[in-house]
């Protein structure tokens, strides 16, 4: 093709749009454009409180942060010691119980990753991510 460099690049840029749009349509139900976590997987502090005893709180932050402070009764389950901590979590879980995972703030990704691993690897249903994370919990409990 005897096109100029700019035209060649523009053709490639434009051509890539077509399959990308197709894929975006195909995955429309699996990803939200508004929030990294689909609204159906998020839970607010207030809503999680209404579940009372029927909830297991999971702290996905590193050990040091968990040791400093955490939601009362929360279990630590972080990526660094996943295999070591998972049996303890599984032992305290029973069918019908809801699981709320949190990390430090809205922007952190640890809670989402832990929640996804619990759903996929441990086959645990009803796993939610706390909206706003530990920061949101602190705001509501000060």
């Amino acid at each position: 093709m005897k096109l100029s460099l700019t035209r060649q690049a523009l053709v490639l840029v434009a051509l890539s749009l077509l399959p990308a749009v197709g894929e975006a349509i195909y995955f429309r139900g699996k990803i939200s454009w508004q929030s990294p976590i689909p609204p159906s997987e998020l839970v607010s502090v207030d809503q999680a409180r209404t579940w009372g005893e029927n909830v297991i709180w999971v702290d996905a932050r590193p050990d040091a942060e968990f040791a400093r402070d955490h939601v009362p009764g929360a279990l630590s389950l972080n990526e660094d010691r996943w295999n070591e901590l998972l049996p303890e979590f599984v032992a305290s879980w029973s069918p019908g119980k809801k699981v709320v995972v949190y990390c430090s703030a809205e922007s952190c990704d640890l809670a989402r990753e832990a929640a996804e691993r619990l759903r996929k690897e441990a086959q645990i249903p009803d796993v939610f991510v706390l909206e706003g994370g530990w920061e949101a919990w602190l705001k509501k409990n000060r």
Partner: protein
Amino acid sequence: MNQTSNVQRPTGINREQALNAEVSADGAASNIKYRRSNILWRIVDFGVAGIFIYAGALKMLDPVQFAHDVKNFQILPWPISVALAFYLPWLEILCGVGLVFRLFYRGALCILSALIVVFTLATAAAKLRGLDITCGCFGHASQHWSFPAHLATNLGILAALLALWFSHRLARYVGEALPGTP
């Protein structure tokens, strides 16, 4: 004696023939050299294209994870991370295919070079800000790569792309200078 002197001192026509033979032998040797180096550059083409097609395919198969990987760099807002997660893998794949089939070749080289520079700068910026992130460049395969490994891979790919760029320019020049070369 005459015969000997004819051999040692060729006539005008013989001399022209000998000169032509010499030039054509030189040309043939250059052609062989050129084709050999051309094969080598095609191998580099395929190598670089393979890397981008593989990386693009991995990301294209799991755009949700790639969107999170882009978001983790904390440079772009979430909706743009999602848009890039759908778009970038296809751009990489099409440019890789462009290198393999020599379609929009210079455009593909230019885009891939720009992409690798942007990826490298983003990785370096994340490192400087102390972010512990997965680049997501090669899906889960690159999940535990260290920063130096990322940097070395990116710089190696950039060097290969630049070499391809210069070899392409040189090939065009040689193609015009040497008869019988593409």
